[in-house]
């Protein structure tokens, strides 16, 4: 992009670095169980949203099947852990099986339908995702249906596992944080997410990344100067599917539970869409910012409103408006305002600050 050297870009990159640092030290900075859940969810969603941005933001492909790939990865690992016990062989087999199924589906959908108009492609992905969702809830024996499945993660990640033993025979602590399996689990999620994110970042900065942007900008001309558009689209669709599948697998290991609501529902698809739009399409940084804000809002807006309602308890009307049960209403208002004031998403809009004015 022509806006990589603006002051705005510097602000965004600094913010993303700060977020990265916060996530790296999250177990030490935020020492409660819920905060660690939130941090892990943020890591996973950054990857999920970034991989979706490869499609919608970089290449201009609208797909509604992204949660499907996430779910396939999650269920693959979950089913293997349930059936084979909590060994690493189960993790490896389940994850690879999930990736293989995702790849097969992505290739099939891609080759069959990336030639057609964008709207038809979106519909086909929607249909595929619906079928998988129905299958997951119907195949009770394997998937646990609506209830999902609970299982044990590899024992390294069990809370009882002691990474280091203190002199007293109990688990050692560092800055008040127990060196147990929970910590190992978080860093597993963090490092997996980091690796996947860096992979995607490299990809978008490579010659291939520029071709993707060219396809988004002007498909016909990209073809005319010698790029096989269908091949590139299918390729990026497969990559995004594989990354989503891996993100699903690591989330399954972290949660030790996989069900339609955590891995496959359309609510997740809508979350991803909102995160991508709010963060800013076509920049990997946008995915980070969107995922962080959205997950934080989902977890903490209620608490914040409870505080606000308490603080304004003596005033008329306000406490009723700030009633914590109305958090979805406020979340909606925040989204509308964000889209209004940051039309290109938060990262996208800020990165334009200080750029030479671009005609549209």
């Amino acid at each position, binding site marked *: 992009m022509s806006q990589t050297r603006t002051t705005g870009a510097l602000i965004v990159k600094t913010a993303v670095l700060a977020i990265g640092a916060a996530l790296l030290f999250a177990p030490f900075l935020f020492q409660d169980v819920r905060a660690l859940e939130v941090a892990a969810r943020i890591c996973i969603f950054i990857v999920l949203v970034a991989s979706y941005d490869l499609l919608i933001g970089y290449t201009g492909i609208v797909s509604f099947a992204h949660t499907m790939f996430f779910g396939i990865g999650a269920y693959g690992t979950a089913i293997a852990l349930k059936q084979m016990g909590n060994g690493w062989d189960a993790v490896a087999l389940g994850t690879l099986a999930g990736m293989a199924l995702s790849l097969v589906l992505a290739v099939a959908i891609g080759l069959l339908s990336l030639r057609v108009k964008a709207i038809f492609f979106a519909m086909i992905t929607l249909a595929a995702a619906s079928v998988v969702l129905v299958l997951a809830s119907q195949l009770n024996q394997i998937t646990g249906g609506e209830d999902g499945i609970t299982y044990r993660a590899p024992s390294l990640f069990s809370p009882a596992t002691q990474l280091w033993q203190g002199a007293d025979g109990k688990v050692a602590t560092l800055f008040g944080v127990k060196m147990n399996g929970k910590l190992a689990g978080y860093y597993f999620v963090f490092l997996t997410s980091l690796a996947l994110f860096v992979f995607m970042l490299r990809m978008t900065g490579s010659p291939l990344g*520029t071709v993707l942007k060219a396809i988004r900008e002007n498909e016909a*001309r990209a073809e005319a100067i010698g790029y096989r558009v269908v091949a590139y689209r299918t390729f990026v669709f497969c990559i995004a599917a594989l990354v989503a599948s891996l993100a699903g697998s690591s989330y399954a290991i972290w949660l030790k539970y996989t069900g339609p609501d955590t891995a496959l529902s359309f609510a997740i698809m809508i979350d991803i869409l909102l995160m991508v739009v709010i963060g800013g399409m076509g920049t990997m940084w946008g995915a980070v910012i969107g995922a962080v804000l959205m997950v934080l809002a989902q977890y903490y807006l209620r608490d914040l409103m409870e505080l606000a309602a308490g603080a304004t308890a003596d005033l008329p009307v306000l406490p009723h408006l700030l009633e914590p049960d109305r958090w979805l209403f406020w979340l909606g208002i925040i989204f509308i305002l964000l889209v209004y004031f940051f039309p290109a998403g938060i990262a996208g809009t800020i990165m334009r600050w200080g750029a030479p004015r671009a005609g549209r």
Partner: protein
Amino acid sequence: MIPPSLVTEDLTIRFGGHVAVDAVSCAFRPGELTVIVGPNGAGKTTYFNLISGQLAASSGRVLKDGVDLTRLSPSARAHHGIGRAFQLTNLFPQLSVLENIRLAVQARAGLGWRVFRPVARFTELTARAERYLEATRLTAVAHQPAAALPHGDQRKLEVALLMAMEPDIYMFDEPTAGMSIDHAPDVLDLIAEIKHDQSKTVLLVEHKMDVVRALADRIIVLHNGALLADGAPDEVMASRIVRDVYLGTSEDAA
């Protein structure tokens, strides 16, 4: 005589009952600049689309150095050395001027599938892109988005994109359309330069008679999709039939 680099054999496309290009057979040779003229709707741009692959022929063939390209996609034809600039500006609007050209250079170098090395480290690509920027005098605006350029510069970028593809066959579709008087000569000089390289074949759709006279080695005339005349500029311009359908009958137009 040099063998032709590009041949169309009975090239035809029908849209429903309408025959837009009607059995056009023509051979083009390296070192030769052919101007294609004809009234609006004569099928000039459609003929180009059939050669570069944006449209699929209903019948007939397109051959490049004897290789049949008729069933290939535009990208495959580009790799066979067919290069095409468009009549309506057709760029990557939100990408910078440099990125636009680098994309074409990169396609030529076959590097689109490189997934990991950052673009910036392909210094050779950037250097080559910068040479085309210089040639088209766009260096000053290299980092602006293509959409922000004035129309004349966008037309130049359109030409630069074609040059950066380094094709064997250059197809220009009204390259100076809508250009101001001071910009047009830049583009025409570039085309003249390409023509001097005797290994390149140039096809040019153009209306402006002074441009045609200055550049053409040969003129072909399309009318209602069919090839009406083909010959040296003086000959064609003097022919009665051409003046009737295209140039009108007035003396000063010719």
